[in-house]
Every structure is written in structure tokens, then in C-alpha cells.
């Protein structure tokens, strides 16, 4: 373990953030509507060696329906989302 870096502690004095352990950084959050195609820039992605995407249902009625979420792709700092039939929450991580 490194003897340098950053540690942050909560009110109880417990370390909750340590550059020895924390691996992924939050970059961006966006909601893509149903049947929407969007493109947007995340400048911070240029700092990252790796990028990961998480998608989740947002305000989707439950039931026996085909709930297609959007697909997300990116090139450098330009991200695109399309082909979703339901609202999708998109989280972008990087490290």
C-alpha cells in the first residue's frame, strides 16, 4: 500500500475514500428519453484510460412488456445513445 496519496474520513473517523483502493470515477449522468437519439460531450473522458457505462430503467411501467433500453457508444469524448423504447438513466464511469 502507498504511503502517499489522499485519504478522506467521515464523522466517525473512518476512512471512506482512499486513493489506494478507490478505482472508478464518476464522469456523467444523463437521462435518455424513449425513442430518443442523443449525442453529447464528456470532456473528462479524455483523462481516462477506461470508460464504463451503466444503464437502468427510469419511470418504466411494470408489466409484461418488451422494455428495450437504449444502447450507448462512444468515441473519445463523444457519447451517443439511441434505439431505446423506454426512458433510460445512463451513468458513465472512468478511470
Amino acid at each position, binding site marked *: 500500500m502507498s504511503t502517499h496519496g489522499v485519504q478522506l474520513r*467521515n464523522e466517525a473517523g473512518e476512512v*471512506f475514500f482512499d486513493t489506494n483502493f478507490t478505482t472508478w*470515477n464518476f464522469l456523467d449522468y444523463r437521462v435518455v428519453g424513449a425513442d430518443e437519439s442523443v449525442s453529447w460531450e464528456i470532456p473528462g473522458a479524455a483523462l481516462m484510460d477506461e470508460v464504463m457505462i451503466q444503464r*437502468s*430503467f427510469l419511470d418504466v411501467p411494470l408489466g409484461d412488456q*418488451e422494455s428495450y433500453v437504449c444502447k450507448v457508444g462512444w468515441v473519445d469524448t463523444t457519447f451517443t445513445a439511441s434505439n431505446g423504447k423506454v426512458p433510460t438513466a445512463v*451513468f458513465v464511469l472512468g478511470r
Partner: protein
Amino acid sequence: MDALGLDIRNGDNHVMISSNAQSFHYLGDADFDRTAISGLTDIPDYYLAGYADPLSGRHVHVYTITIPNGSDPLVFIQPGNENSYGILRKYALQGLPEGPNTVWAIDIIQRGLTSVRPKRVLCFYQLKGITTPKEDYGMVTKIVDGSIAFDASRNPLAIRDAKLVRPPAIPCDGGLPTSERGWAFRDKKLDHDFRCDTTENAYPLVALDSNDVAFTAPALAQAVYSRRKYGYKKSCGTYSCQEHWSTAHWWCMYQSTYRITGTSSTLTLKAGWAPYDAGYHYWEKYESGGIGGGGGGGYTVGEQPYADKTINLYPSNTAMIIDAGAYLA
């Protein structure tokens, strides 16, 4: 990208904190509201003596949290057990999504015959429109509009691990169910295992206390699969013959779910499925045989929601892992 500001990197040159990125921060634990749906331990509307039709069971637990500033909640499940859970959906229950003081509902699906709620449901939010640090000590970064990106005194989100995960494409423990002809007329004997208890993919995680692990893993993938047996017979009377056709059709719809197994050094995320809905459909028809023959007719029971398929499986989705012990309720 700004030419000034703060970037902190770890020993692997990974960016840990950046004034270009607006982090999520711990808001609090969501409150349990109710268990909205329970059951699905067998296929509805089907019974035939000697032919069991077990399913894995599922429950949908509803939680709520109030977000003060129009941010959407980022939700983590701390199971505290080895049951399988997934975040089914989030929606604004009261107020507008853009706020203020929006009450959000979070539906969490759990696989199992018995209802077992997760130990905690932790909620994080972005500090939209908040420009003042919580305390007058600690570290704060801001983005160009002056709102806070990172505030050490507000318990910022620290992601310990992230993995691209997906469950197996076919949810059934009995494998891919099939449809074929050649069965006897009125054959209603179920011969496929629609449970999903052992159909999982495993992903090793970084070492953490297994009781403190929390994950965010949306129940994004959906699947519907069915088993059909087409039956037939031809019977002849004195002067004529009748043809008889039957279809026995069992189906199950699934949502993806996830669970944590192992101890600290063997911590594993398992991506699998939970049943969401199921049914039984039976159809028969026979033609009239004319003089001396029997009458025609037919009947149906039940209905499958849509054609057999798995959706939202590719590309893989990301599961994020945190140490819930660092966020005190």
C-alpha cells in the same frame, strides 16, 4: 476540458477526484414502504397430479426517498445475505423529477420462495444547485457554474469496483425449452424446469467485508421462454373420422438479478435471473365428424405476453460496488 482545477490520481495513474466531474454523494437510506408483489412459486393456472411446476419465487419490495434538489437517485443494495436482488425501476412518486423535494420510489425485485428484504438500500445524489460546503473544513471542488462537484464532508461516492456483468442468455435451470409436434392429444404433462436458482455467471470482486458490500445493478435484462407440446389424434366412427389437435403451452418471464457470495478474499458477484410472471395456455380443437361422429369445438386458457427472446443483455451492463460500512445511516 478545463486547463486548471484539481486532478488526483492513484498509483495506477487512475483519476480519483477531478474538478471536471460532478460526483454523487450519500443522501441516506431509503425507507421501506411495502412488499408490492410476492409469490410465483409455481406456474399459475396449471395443475396436473404427478407433474410438478415449481418456479423460483419472487418479491418486489418498494422503497422511497426524498431528493431535495432535483437530482435523480443512484441506488445501492446492501444485501447482508446471499439472496439475489435487482433494481427493477425508479420513478418520481410525488412531485416533479426536476424537484424540489421529489419523493422517489425504488422497486427492488428479490428472487426466492421466502420474502427477505436487503439489509440496507443506500441512496446517493448529485449536489445540483448547491454551492456552499456543508462544513468549514475538509476538501471541496467546484465545477465552472459554481456548484459543488466533490465535498468531503458530504460523504462522496467512492466506487471500489465496477464490472461489466450479464446473466446467462437462457434463464431456465432446465436449459432452453423447446416446442415440437408428435405428442398425444391432450398431453398436458409439464416436462421442463423453469426455475432459475442455479443459472448464473460469476464475477470475482475486490476484497471487502462481505457484510458491508453494496452494489448497484439494474434488473435490466428481460427474458420470456416457453415450452409447447403439440398433440394430435385421429379417431374414426362408423362412417367418418375426426382429427383432434391440442397445444399445451407453459411460459415464464424473467428479470435479471444479482447476489454476493463468498467471504472477503473470495467475494463474488453472481448475475442471474428471477421470475417475474408466468402462465399456462392450453388450446384444443376437434373437427365435426358428421353423421354418427362427434361435434367440433375447442377452448383456450392463458396467454404469453410476447415471443420467446432475451433482451437488453448486450452490451453487458455495469455493476458498481461500494463499501456500505463507510456510509452511516
